[in-house]
């Protein structure tokens, strides 16, 4: 799994807990990301730092400061662990 996909999975897990599964699915669908019944990303091709940024921006509108603060943390952790460039919205 590429680290950006891992970041996206961390975002999804966190948003499932913060916003609930239905709303998370709807927000992701609005930016072209589909999840299967178990919550896995259906089409993970092309997930890169820019896509992670796009996802965080989409959630930012719904979860506000608290939500974004808590979502950023696991994403940042994964970026550091994998020594990959941190998406700009996580800086």
């Amino acid at each position, binding site marked *: 799994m590429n680290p950006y996909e891992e970041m996206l999975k961390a975002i999804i897990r*966190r948003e499932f807990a913060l916003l609930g599964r239905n709303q998370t699915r709807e927000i992701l669908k609005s930016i072209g990301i589909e999840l299967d019944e178990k919550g896995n990303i259906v089409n993970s091709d092309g997930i890169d730092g820019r896509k992670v940024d796009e996802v965080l921006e989409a959630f930012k509108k719904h979860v506000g400061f608290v*939500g974004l603060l808590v979502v950023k943390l696991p994403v940042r952790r994964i970026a550091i662990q994998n020594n990959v460039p941190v998406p700009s919205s996580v800086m």
Partner: protein
Amino acid sequence: MAEKYDSAVKLADGNYWVGYTEAESAFRTNAYIIESGDEVALIDAGSIVYFDSMFKQISKVVDVKKIKYFIQHHQDPDLCSSLPEWEKKIGPQKILAHTKSNILIYHYGVKSELVNVDLEGWELEMPDRKIKFIFMPYMHSPGEIMTYDTKTKVLFSGDIFGGLSFDWALYANEDYFEAMDAFMEHYMPSKEIVNANLKKIENLEISMICPQHGSIIPGDRVKEAIENMKNLDCGSYLYE
């Protein structure tokens, strides 16, 4: 969608959840009561912002004049700022907290007697049960305590095991531990402190964990919750 409750919920013999559900927020606060004979202990009295709701909620399940004790797990405003309002309704009672918390609770202008549980044997005798207090320093406050009902084995945990969620449920759902991480990562100081304190409850018989934020963790998920928290990177880690 967050769950809504119009009345208190009985959790165990003499133990009730008495929180409110009208706020659309990820940062929800719970309160609980222990009713024992003709005495009631209110656990984490709550915010002044939601005092009216909580007062109505609690009045439905017990005679508020039976409230003798306010058990405060630490001194923050989300659990202490309603104390002066309570005193206006039922008069000064006893506020039970750690010395380090009571020093600050005094500054809410309370008139109640401040009882320092650390100087009183860490226990409270109620008519049909003994209540024990467990010291959990720096999780997140220096005088942090938990409250354990020895009759029902319910652990009232304050901020510890609390969670953040707009999708709140009274009992922890399948995603709760992730919601718990979201809160604990920021409010717990370090893995070393968390792990040292968790040893105090690892061998305790616990029927459920009732945190001040988030959802109640049922008995069959308590071990998993403790393990989850032991492995959590938190506090000082975030800024390394």
